[in-house]
């Protein structure tokens, strides 16, 4: 059938030879696909400082990176527009997304195992950044490298919103940047303006002041509002509950929830450490002191008048409760405004919701002599590079990281998917300025005044606690706080239990 050369090694292929060849090919293919599929791959064309920008961008053309990220809008936007990055650099990036706890677990196993299956990963400031900072590359060495393409706006603290670079980039050592700000979730108050207007007079009759939300609205006022709504509900009126808390399964958001209350009252902090840098040796926690006990009492009081399914509602569920019209107020992250304003899924859309800063501390509740502030906290998601990766993979990852935090991409996420920018320059775009007022095509922009113009500014913003055992601390706090809310222990007992376990976790 086929022409066989006279000098052919095999004139015909025996069954044995066929099996040998087939086996060999299968082994080679299997090994090859494993190597390509599981790991990043690097190809390099050397460049010099004088090389063109295009040459610097293309120096790792043919390489492959794996980016492990949280399932949030910026990650989806990057994935959707990954071809742009490939066209510009020739680098293939596989974007894997998952829930934040899963991202942390996968990345943690990878980096602590000395591997670099995820050479570039999402580093949420405290749950991932503070816990895994030792495994992240210092960006400063690449920022100074003139053989790498650099963002024209640069990476200094002034190009990001106040404190954002510190929030995710500064960990334990001054001068190091372990992540660049990629995604932001900053707390502010979402409240039902329509209900506030409707019941304002009734409220004023009982409480002798107006029911409204401004930067001067205190936690005591919020407690009054929530109590008022609960009384109406108990009287049989068709009204939502006043308030809801973040007490579901994700311990970190529970810690953030009580942190806002505590920081508002005398800027109380969990440890006596530098709020920006954090500390690997935090020393004894401040839990158990008079302020913490008082705040725990107030948190419990707030819980008693809040939505009855508080203990099952984490951040996402709480937002669903608000969308369903079951609560009139929530302190929520500004990235959720897009979902609240979605008319298809939210009863709170269409101008019913207004946005305000986080509540101010109530002077009479302060026990430590500090001042009352609008305690605001955040989750600043950074993009970090795995220290275990080779130098070339790290450099290629840097090129991708700068793309991921570029103004162009952030603007595109904000306008397309409802993201939350970290670069100041995005807010200067004329259509973003216009979007800050209704009607808007970028609902998250409705929160910008409360967040970017007020909440993240000193003295309101709190970044910590950044400690290596942060995840264990969050779990301890959430568990004992929930027991207090459930009536299983008193506020004093809860604070003492948090202190005992936290100090134990920190080897005190």
């Amino acid at each position, binding site marked *: 059938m086929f022409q066989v050369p006279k000098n052919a090694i095999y004139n015909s292929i025996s069954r044995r030879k066929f099996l040998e060849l087939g086996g060999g090919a299968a082994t080679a293919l299997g090994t090859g696909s494993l190597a390509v599929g599981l790991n990043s791959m690097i190809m390099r064309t050397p460049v010099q400082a004088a090389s063109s920008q295009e040459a610097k961008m293309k120096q790792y053309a043919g390489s492959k990176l794996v980016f492990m990220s949280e399932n949030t809008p910026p990650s989806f936007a990057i994935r959707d527009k990954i071809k742009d990055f490939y066209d510009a650099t020739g680098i293939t990036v596989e974007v894997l997304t998952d829930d934040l*706890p899963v991202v*942390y*677990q996968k990345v*943690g*196993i990878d980096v*602590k195992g000395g591997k670099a299956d995820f050479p570039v990963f999402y580093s949420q400031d405290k749950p991932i950044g503070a*816990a895994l900072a*030792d*495994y992240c590359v210092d960006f400063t060495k690449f920022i100074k490298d003139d053989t790498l393409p650099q963002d024209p706006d640069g990476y200094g603290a002034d190009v990001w919103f106040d404190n954002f670079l510190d929030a995710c980039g500064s960990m334990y050592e001054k001068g190091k940047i372990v992540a660049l700000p990629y995604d932001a979730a900053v707390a502010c108050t979402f409240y039902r303006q329509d209900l506030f207007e409707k019941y304002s007079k009734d409220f004023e009759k009982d409480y002798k002041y107006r029911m409204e939300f401004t930067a001067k609205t205190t936690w005591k006022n919020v407690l009054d509002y929530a109590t008022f709504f609960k009384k109406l509900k108990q009287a049989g009126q068709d009204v939502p509950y006043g308030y809801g808390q973040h*007490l*579901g*399964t*994700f311990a970190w958001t529970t810690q953030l929830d009580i942190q806002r209350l505590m920081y508002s009252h005398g800027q109380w902090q969990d440890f006596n450490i530098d709020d920006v840098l954090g500390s690997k040796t935090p020393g004894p926690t401040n839990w158990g002191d008079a302020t913490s006990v008082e705040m725990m009492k107030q948190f419990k009081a707030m819980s008693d008048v809040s939505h*009855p*399914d*508080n*203990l*099952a*509602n984490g951040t996402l*569920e709480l937002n*669903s*409760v608000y969308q*369903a019209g*079951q609560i009139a107020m929530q302190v929520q992250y500004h990235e959720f405004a897009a979902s609240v304003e979605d008319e298809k899924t939210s009863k709170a859309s269409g101008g019913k919701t207004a946005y305000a800063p986080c509540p101010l501390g109530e002077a009479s509740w302060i026990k430590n002599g500090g001042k009352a502030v609008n305690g605001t906290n955040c989750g600043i998601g950074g993009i970090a590079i795995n220290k275990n990766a080779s130098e070339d993979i790290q450099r290629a990852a840097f090129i991708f990281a700068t793309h991921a935090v570029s103004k162009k991409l952030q603007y595109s996420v904000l306008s397309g998917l409802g993201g939350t920018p970290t670069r100041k320059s995005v807010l200067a775009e004329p259509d973003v300025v216009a979007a800050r007022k209704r009607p808007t095509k970028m609902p998250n922009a409705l929160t910008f005044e409360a967040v970017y113009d007020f909440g993240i500014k000193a003295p309101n913003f709190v970044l910590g606690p950044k400690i290596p*055992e942060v*995840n*264990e601390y969050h*779990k301890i706090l*959430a*568990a004992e706080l*929930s*027991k207090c*809310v*459930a009536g*299983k222990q008193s506020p004093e007992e809860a604070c003492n239990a948090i202190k005992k376990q936290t100090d134990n*976790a920190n080897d005190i």
Partner: protein
Amino acid sequence: MTQNISPAPEGAVRYVDGAKVLDYLPQVFNVKPSSSYYFWLMAPALIVLAAISIYPFFWLIWMSLHNVGSSAGDTFVGLKNFEKLLTDDKFWIGWGLLFKYSAFCMFFEIAIGVLLAVILNGHRFENILVTVFLMPMMMAPAIAGLVWYYLFNSTFGWYHWLLQSLGILGETSIIGSTDTAMAALIIVDIWQWTPLITLITLAGMKRVPRDQLEANMVDGASAFRNFVAITLPNIYPFLLIGIMLRFMDNFRFIDVILALTGGGPAESTKVLPVYLFDVSFVFFKLGRGAAIALTLLIVTIILCKLLVRVFEGPASKRTDMGS
């Protein structure tokens, strides 16, 4: 009559009572293989087993004696990880919750599973009904957890709405209260795994000797007496398998719990395996996690041995009576 069999002088030829016999197979195949021959036959399986089971087991012991995963490298700490467990309240509470969870699951699954098997055995729609009942088992536990999470949710959960409408629940969802969250987990476990007990029991009931049942009935025994005296002793070994499987599953399955409650609210459902997960993959204290895992393994083995002994008693008595 005794046969005088002489060994074949050579090859496959031998003599039986003076008659020449040619064996069908050459004699070489009748030679007992050496022990190394069996070893090499088993070697591939042993290597696979060692790689996936024995090596990790010894690695687990090694980890339990070390501080693992710190950036400074792994350091030997002796029995410190075990010592810490002794004063760790969450460890002991985790054990308590695990026993409570397992005991309730097993009790209801055995009771309902056996009852269903009795009802289904010989039923005219047995095959169809068994297939329908088996459906929950086909669902991945993590998916089952998510499905039930949505059903129980107080904002949009259909079951919550139903239970609330019936006056069984208030506005707080079953997974939002420390008093009821464990019940939610048990309900899901019963829903998913009772069919396994039903299936195993049904298989056992097919093996019950009909003559014993008929003889007992002739003696005037009622259906219930027949079940207790004949059926139950005959299905003991099958029930033992079912109980052992479920018991071990309860001690290691955390998918549903993580999806449904995450160990909350207020740690009311933080059974030991969930705490083990937290310690190992949230706190990344792999040494302490390994110590917890080892205690879990040892207790599981001891309890399995006890279970076997408990069930062997009636089973051997039955065998004695039979002989």
